[in-house]
């Protein structure tokens, strides 16, 4: 069982790109330092995100990516 979990963990992690790995690691470390109320808020946001219609999720994701690209370009 432990071996299966470790193998799955390895697969999920390996499937991420280096940038995604960096982001996961940074966010996990940030998450650990967040106050409890912020953690709860983010969990609620995550649940809300999951319930959004697929097309809306895609639009929001696209908008977010555009803003990120714009911010990087500005830097």
């Amino acid at each position, binding site marked *: 069982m432990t071996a299966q*979990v*470790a193998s*799955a*963990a*390895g697969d*999920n*992690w390996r499937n*991420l790109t*280096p940038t*995604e*790995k*960096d*982001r*996961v*690691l940074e*966010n*996990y*470390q*940030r*998450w650990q330092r967040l106050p409890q109320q912020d953690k709860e808020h*983010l*969990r609620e*946001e*995550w*649940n*809300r*995100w*999951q319930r959004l219609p*697929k*097309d*809306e*999720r*895609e*639009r*929001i*994701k*696209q*908008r*977010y*990516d555009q803003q990120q690209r714009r911010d990087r370009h500005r830097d």
Partner: protein
Amino acid sequence: MKNAMPLQSACKEFEEDLVLYYYGETSEDERRRIGRHLFGCLRCQGFLGDLQRLLPQMARTEELPQSFWDNYYRETVAKLAQQDERKHWWRSLIPQMKIWIVPAFGTVAMTVLVIGLLFGKGNLSSFTLRPAEKIPHEILADENQLQFFESMDLLESLSKLQSQDEQKPEAVNTQSSRMRFQSGTV
């Protein structure tokens, strides 16, 4: 004043011979011939007398004490040694340098190469390890949790993005956007 008196003139043909005579640089026959002439010639006697009086003064050198020559020798040796040292001071470094210059140069070159590779490509993060051990395995194993931590930035501004989307909906190209958020809870 006596020294300034001009030489008395000698017989023309004996003038040069008398100088040689004075210095003893004539042959025995010449010496006898000149001696015979001198015996009967007052002018040449006067000329030889003048030579005997004046030439030693002209040739006289100042007598220097032995201490001067001793100091002179010491100073000359010291100056030569100083000059030699100035000229070749760097040569003494060469044998020492040979010992460490090769490994030192190699180390510096390797360091420059590594730094160049890391920063030159502007892709330092690709060389650094991303240890998965920093994240608990139960999170890594759960794809939803990985997605949560990957999209945490987006979630923090979800409300803002949603309001922007309601104000100005944009066309979505579902082919180009990579959506990883399908289902599941944290």
